[in-house]
């Protein structure tokens, strides 16, 4: 059945810069902002933009992600025609390969895309937090008759050398693309969101696959090749909230942004809902001695202690006399009485024993020694254990180096 536009979501990356948090799961499955996981953002954006067919390309540790996506029902993507499809690498008559790069992952699924005979394909990543109407981007792509449209946003000039930077002409057509340039010519950064005319992309994917020297990557190979061949490449300006949560610091930042009204990430507004698969838990309870300030709380939370400037996912318990501040607590984590958690990310189902101390306040720490403390999912700290700032523990309580 023909679809005008479908989306392909790249969700196979390991997310190695999230270290222990992605030890057992792919980055898009990492919990975010209380009740969500990172992948809820692109999936909800698709549904809200009217895209009802989404291929999710998985490779690294897909179990958690697969079971989370399931039939796609929470995102209204359980369709009889289209819907969400998990696309892992597969074996074929000529052998089997992993997805060698972002472009190769799409190349290996040309058959899936051709099933829907789309005019346009939207390529998304599974590690960004943002709300965006893709239909407007596709609309612009059609209007200017581009072969490829790349979503861009203005970043501070000082940061520009960390991004893929686009130079554009007066009509916002891309004239030059530079990956992490030392001397950026523009401050328009690529957000890793592309709209392609399928015919054009199909052609370049085949050419890219035939080139033995290619790394099969969109940013490094396919986009430069299209630009070099003189294809019409447009920039689509985006000005809302967008954050790549590929590092521990940026993941923590984005969680804190959710609490700040002026950061632009308002998840309570009803016009552009972010959907998530939810679990059956009763609403949150704040006890008689609870002190909860400037924090997000979710269903199943049972709070008797002090929680300041923190994001609590479903099922988090903070016992009497425990203190949690400037931290992100993922689902099912328990902080026992007397424990202190500061500037930390605690993975799912962590257990912080009585009077343990995890992380520390930057004001009270030597700046060289300071950093976020991070515990992998399922980590237990025995009572009284001290986990200093900038320390990372895996589920066995062993220290892991960054």
């Amino acid at each position, binding site marked *: 059945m023909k679809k005008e536009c479908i989306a392909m979501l790249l969700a196979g990356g390991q997310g190695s810069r999230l270290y222990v948090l992605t030890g057992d799961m792919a980055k898009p499955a990492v919990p975010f902002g209380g*009740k969500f996981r990172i992948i809820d953002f692109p999936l909800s954006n698709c549904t809200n933009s009217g895209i009802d067919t989404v291929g999710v390309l998985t490779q690294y540790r897909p179990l958690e992600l697969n079971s989370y996506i399931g039939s796609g029902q929470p995102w209204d993507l359980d369709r009889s025609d289209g819907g969400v499809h998990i696309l892992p690498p597969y074996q074929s008559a000529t052998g089997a390969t992993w997805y060698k790069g972002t472009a190769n992952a799409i190349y290996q699924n040309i058959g899936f895309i051709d099933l829907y005979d789309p005019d346009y394909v939207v390529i998304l990543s599974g590690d960004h937090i943002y709300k965006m109407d893709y239909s407007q981007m596709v609309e612009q792509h059609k209007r200017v008759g581009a072969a490829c449209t790349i979503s861009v946003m203005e970043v501070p000039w000082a940061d520009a050398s960390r991004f893929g930077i686009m130079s554009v002409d007066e009509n916002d057509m891309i004239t030059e693309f530079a990956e992490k340039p030392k001397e950026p010519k523009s401050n328009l950064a690529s957000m890793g969101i592309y709209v392609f005319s399928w015919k054009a992309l199909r052609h370049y994917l085949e050419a890219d696959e035939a080139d033995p020297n290619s790394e099969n990557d969109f940013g490094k190979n396919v986009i430069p090749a299209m630009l070099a061949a003189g294809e019409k490449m447009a920039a689509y300006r985006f000005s809302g909230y967008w954050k790549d949560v590929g590092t521990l610091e940026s993941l923590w930042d984005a969680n804190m942004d959710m609490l700040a009204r002026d950061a632009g990430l308002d998840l309570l507004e009803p016009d552009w809902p972010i959907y998530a698969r939810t679990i059956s838990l009763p609403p*949150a309870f*704040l006890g008689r001695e609870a002190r909860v*300030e*400037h924090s*997000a709380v979710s269903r199943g939370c049972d709070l008797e202690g002090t929680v300041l400037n923190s994001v*609590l996912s479903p099922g988090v318990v903070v016992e009497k006399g425990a203190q949690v501040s400037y931290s992100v607590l993922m689902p099912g984590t328990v902080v026992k009485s007397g424990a202190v958690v500061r500037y930390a990310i605690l993975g799912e189902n962590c257990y912080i024993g009585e009077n343990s101390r995890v992380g520390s306040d930057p004001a009270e720490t030597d700046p060289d020694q300071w950093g976020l403390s991070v515990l992998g999912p399922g980590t237990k700290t025995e009572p009284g254990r001290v986990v200093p700032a900038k320390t990372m523990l895996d589920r066995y309580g062993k220290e892991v180096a960054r």
Partner: protein
Amino acid sequence: MKGMHGIIFSYERRNDLGELTEVRAPASIPFGGRYRVIDFALSNMVNAGITDVGVVLHGRYQSLLDHLGTGKNWDLSRKRGGLTLLPPYADKPKWEDNAFRGKLDALMGIRSYLDAIRQDYVVMTDGDLVVNLPLDKMYEEHLKSGADISVVCADDSFAVADGTYFEVDQDGWVTDTLYHIHQPRGRRGLEVYLLSKELLIRLTDECASHDQYSFRRDVLQARRDQLKIHAFIWREYAAQIRSVQEYYERSMQLLDPAIRRELFCPQRPVRAKSSDEASSYIDPQTHCVNSIVGDGSCIEGTVEDSILFPGVVVERGAQVQGCILMKGTVVHKNSVLHNVISDKDVEIMDGRTLMGHASYPLVIAKGSKI
């Protein structure tokens, strides 16, 4: 086929619920910061492995239809069986004025549905009951006791509007059924009944042919010498939502952690319609204690001893004490609310003061703006 079939009765008969049932049947009253009353009956059935559930509808059921949908949220959207909505008097040849007289009347109204039940046993429950009941245990006890009918009793004789009470002997057999009594005695019946499909159909037909319509009068009382009636005694939290006062007091009990552990025990999760609200936000200026807070709320004022449903907004300077605020209630700046039950989408403008009392909570009807 072995196992149980579930039937839930959603009546319109209770009238002590005031504004809360102006727009809905008691079964779809919001409860506990997230649920509708019927979620408990449905979850009890699903958690006991019941796959087929019929819901007998009566008046004002639009809200219930919206809530139940296909039954997907309770895993009851199945190819065979699953959730069946039974509109009032599906089998009645013509509409009569006073549509509902009693449970047997309602059963006669769905007579052909009863024939089609695949399971050997049927558990019937009222839609106004809030309890986390292990029906599978009740089923086991029923089979072991050799009873014709099992009834569920609470461990108290708490007075409820239009309550049914049982005298139970030391072996658990029901010796008498009482109702319309001035001073409740015996054990409070929770109006949950388990019996074989065959007996249910026989009783329904017999009673229909004698124009008998009340299950407790014409079956439990009148046939107590012919039927062996066994009591399954439930010692934990069980609330029947039949008056505003009862709704209020039973809701407030949820602030007790021991009661919450009984009603929300992790082995038998209570399933509800999934909602898409984000996590709630609690502001730095807030004092929010001893309260239940639903998802997607934004709390900037003072909240004490209250139950907040999803999407509630309490602005700066507002004080909420001993209140139940349903979905979408907005309390603007500097308002003071004590012992108020606000229905869905109520808006309290700046600086209003609304005072009820724990013994007489003030109910504000759905969508009101004050």
